[in-house]
């Protein structure tokens, strides 16, 4: 069967997730539509095959969490922790996303067409995140690897205690976090932003973005810092 529909108004969520973990992996469906998600938690979590899942409506917490290989689209908004700890594949939120979107994602691409809440990309470990709107405060906190492209504005303390992740912002940044700094955009950066925008299906001038990366001054203990950072 190529396409299959689950209606969460009548079918239990566990039936859907069990199908996606087992039958979809065995190739029994390549495209699964989920109706009436109605804010349920843990929709399409832990997928590990290249199935396409379309969630029609608003998803609750952790939608598409731990995703591997699959492509999950949410036509409405996503609750806390969408695509949390994603390994690969793609999660696309067409509405807004709540706090902690893409937290600690190791790989894959998270696209949020609308705004993202606070702590977007916190502890990012290699995934890519493209946000069409703005991100809330403390985004990319302690982000270790991967890239974030923010087409709108950013809240307070963007990139606080950054490691090696790189952030690109088009709009205003309310404040940078400790140890984050603006750096010049190289041709490589412009190409990276262009490629991510292209994958996200968003139309912006890559040259209009600013690069933010770590000063690396927190990498080593400084006994003279006197707790002032």
């Amino acid at each position: 069967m190529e396409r299959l529909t689950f209606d969460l108004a009548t079918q239990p969520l566990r039936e859907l997730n069990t199908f996606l973990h087992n039958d979809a992996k065995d190739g029994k469906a390549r495209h699964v539509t989920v109706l009436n998600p109605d804010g349920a938690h843990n929709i399409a979590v832990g997928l590990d095959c290249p199935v396409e899942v379309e969630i029609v409506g608003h998803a609750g917490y952790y939608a598409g969490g731990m995703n591997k290989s699959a492509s999950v689209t949410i036509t409405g908004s996503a609750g806390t922790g969408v695509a949390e700890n994603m390994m690969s594949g793609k999660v696309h939120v067409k509405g807004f996303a709540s706090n902690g979107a893409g937290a600690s994602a190791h790989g894959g691409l998270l696209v949020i067409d609308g705004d993202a809440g606070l702590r977007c990309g916190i502890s990012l470990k290699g995934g890519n995140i493209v946000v069409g709107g703005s991100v809330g405060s403390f985004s990319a906190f302690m982000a270790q690897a991967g890239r974030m492209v923010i087409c709108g504005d950013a809240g307070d303390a963007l990139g606080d205690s950054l490691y090696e992740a790189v952030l690109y912002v088009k709009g205003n940044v309310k404040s940078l976090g400790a140890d984050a700094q603006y750096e010049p955009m190289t041709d490589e950066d412009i190409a990276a932003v262009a490629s991510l925008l292209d994958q996200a299906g968003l139309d912006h001038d890559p040259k209009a973005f600013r690069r933010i990366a770590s000063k690396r001054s927190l990498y080593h203990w400084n006994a003279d810092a006197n707790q002032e950072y």
Partner: protein
Amino acid sequence: MCGIVGLLVKTPALREKLGELMVPMLIGMTERGPDSAGLAVFGNPLAESQRKISVYSGLTEDGADFNWLGLSHELKAHLGVPVGIEIKGNHAVLTFDVAPAIVKRWIAEHHPKLHILSTGRSIDLYKDIGTPAEVAARYDFSKLTGSHLVGHTRMATESAVTPDRAHPFTAGEDFCLVHNGSLSNPNGIRRMLEPRGIHFETDNDTEAACRFLEWRLREGDDLETALQKGFEELDGFFTFLMGTPDKLALIRDPFACKPAVVAETDDYVAIASEFRSLAHLPGIKHATVFEPAPEEMYVWNA
């Protein structure tokens, strides 16, 4: 964890359905708050001189068998004025035409185990331990009518599971507050308010926030100014939803540690901790759904 819900109807015809629309919202928050539930509903105000109090008898020996009619007769004999009464098991609403302090003092002296839930011209308040579905059935929440309401499902973290520590909390007249989160300075707030003659009924952190904001309103602040002072004085995690006779107000702490989502249509504004409590509302698929920003004030007029 806890769940909050709020509903304000803009279309007058929906006032009759306020309770019916809200019950699934409250039950939708059961996983966030299974130990107690409650709500405050605001309707047409009584005449200027009249007051009503919601009273809970669950802490008395007779519980739901409490002799409410006897109480209203005694009160009538003592006050010399008519006392209206609406009884729902362990809950009653008493209506009278004298200063509420007189009635409350008499109740405290003669029935010290009765718990006064709310006072005002517009507010009725219900809260009790049990799952949201049990509490909703106990008080026929689905039949409630009015312009707006504030509800809560509780998973206790800061104080014991008892009816008086359930939410909403009230202070003064026609003001109530529900809270998802935990405050880190409730005792400091308490120590600041108690010398000003403000009396606390429980050790609950939310009560401190409720009494602080009501104190500011009583001191003459408008709601926005009071909420601004709340941002300055209240430390901790919170999504607060508050009700006054003509307003519903929402604030979240600067870290947005506790969730909230709003759905608005031409007919209503609905607020809940999570979208799953809004999913059943009529016209929700075409509603404007958004997440309220941290440290912003949202005030809707009834």
